[in-house]
């Protein structure tokens, strides 16, 4: 395996060297993406700057996220009722950033469950997610001082098939009636099937996703929903680590830049209607800067 990897690295290095030679004539940088590189650098600078500020003791205030506060309540309820907590980390692999954000929330859920002595069940649709979730939950139980209570069999692989996974989860929910269902990750058509099944068994439900098309379904069927950005902020909110909170502030600065660009674009588009000579500037703005 190591030999194979080394060969791959050498081959890749050769390919890069060959491509670099070709690129010398065509330019090293994709000039069409230069404005985006500028925006990316601004964003990186903003995030790194605020992480540094937060690490040096600067105060960062984050508004309360109701959905995340509800997690403790949900786990507590499950403990009182003697039932389990079902955690669904979406149907995508660990290469999907939403899955990683979901795993972060799982860490908090597992820690709370360890403290309350509640059972957290995590059926997954991807094997790499299973491995990651196991590591995370084990770490959370250790942090809660309950390493003995960790049971890796509760985090298991079901199937990669979207509707096979949904069929398993729906059946399991109806049979075992978990007291709380937490959906955090990337979801597609299965979002409403899961959330409605959870609703029908009277479970307290918290969802979080960055799939805009699925958000209305979760909002309609769940008690709390983390909408896109809130879902990504969950990691910082839950960890309370200055570095992570600082990144949220950097994100706000980037949002301000987006706000300014949208305002400038709207003004320019309006002005172009009255002053046709501004058409060139408008084309540059929409075609090059935003394109």
């Amino acid at each position, binding site marked *: 395996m190591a030999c194979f990897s080394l060969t791959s690295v050498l081959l*890749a290095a050769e*390919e*890069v060297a*060959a*491509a*670099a030679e070709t*690129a010398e004539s*065509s330019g090293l940088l994709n000039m069409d993406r230069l404005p*985006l590189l500028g925006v*990316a650098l601004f*964003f*990186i600078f903003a*995030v790194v700057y605020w*992480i540094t500020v937060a690490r040096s003791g600067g105060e960062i205030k984050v508004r309360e996220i109701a959905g995340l506060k509800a997690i403790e309540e949900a786990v507590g309820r499950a403990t009182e009722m003697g039932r389990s907590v079902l955690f669904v980390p979406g149907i995508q*692999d660990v*290469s999907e*950033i939403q899955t*990683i954000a979901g795993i*972060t929330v799982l860490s908090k859920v597992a820690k709370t469950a360890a403290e309350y002595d509640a059972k957290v069940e995590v059926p997954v649709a991807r094997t*790499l997610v*299973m*491995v*990651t979730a196991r*590591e*995370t939950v084990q*770490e959370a139980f250790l*942090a809660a001082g309950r390493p003995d209570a960790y049971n890796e069999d509760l985090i*298991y*692989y079901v*199937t*990669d*098939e979207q*509707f*096979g996974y*949904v069929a398993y989860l729906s059946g399991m929910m109806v049979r075992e009636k978990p007291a709380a269902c937490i959906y955090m990750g990337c979801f597609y*058509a299965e979002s*409403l*099937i899961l*959330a*409605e099944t959870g609703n029908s068994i009277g479970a307290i439900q918290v969802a979080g996703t*960055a799939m*805009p098309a699925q958000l209305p*379904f979760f*909002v*309609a*069927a769940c008690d709390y929903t983390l909408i*896109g*950005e809130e879902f*990504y*902020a969950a*990691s910082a909110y839950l960890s309370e*680590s200055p*570095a*992570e909170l600082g*990144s*949220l502030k*950097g*994100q706000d600065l*980037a949002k301000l830049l*987006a706000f300014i660009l949208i305002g400038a674009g709207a003004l320019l588009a309006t002005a172009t209607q009255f002053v046709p000579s501004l058409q060139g500037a408008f084309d540059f703005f929409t075609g090059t800067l935003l394109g």
Partner: protein
Amino acid sequence: MLKRTIPMLLAMAAGIVMILAYFFPWLTPLQDQTTVWFNILAAVAFILGGGNLLKVHLKKVSDRREGWAYSMITLAAFVGVLVIGLFKLGVNPLDDFPAQRMAGDFRAEGSGFWYVYEYVFAPLTATIFSMLAFYVASAAFRAFRAKNFEAILLLSTAFVILLGRTAAGVFLTDFLPEEGMLANFRLENLTVWIMNNPVTAGNRAIMIGIALGTASVSLKILLGVDRSYLGGGD
């Protein structure tokens, strides 16, 4: 070191390559190579998944836990399809190699695997998917209860959209002219306006937040600030 630092460095290196390759075209081969590595890793993980599936369900059956019969069905289906696929049962040989049945494509029309897919798997998947229609109805019924101002607004907008997308909507406002100011109030036009303006604006606001959130989380992972994917901790 082996459990945290090296995986973190690998993740950082792969992430940085992916970002840089977007701006610097000469890094594209390295980006492709990184993707291939992930695919290899995911393929190996399939074995892990199969093993875990067998372990969980065999344990359930052996312990006679509640619902063990479902586990039996799962195990039978798993082993059955695996045998059909691996041994290429029912596969027609290729024209070039009529004596070599194993040379045929296991997914080709008429093969055992194809039959399982077409006549068992596809109908089952379609059944689960079709349940969505009923869930949409029950969720809509709950969401559209006019209990406060926001819910009334949601209900009236949904009512306009639903009507505007049906023949009844067109019929109801047919008396309005097709041109001029009043044409905007025809239900089919009102629907298009709602979808193109308030809905798109709201959607884009969410999309901008999501895009920034995605970039921020990615950056935290690249900088090693967020290590939750390694099991958390410092």
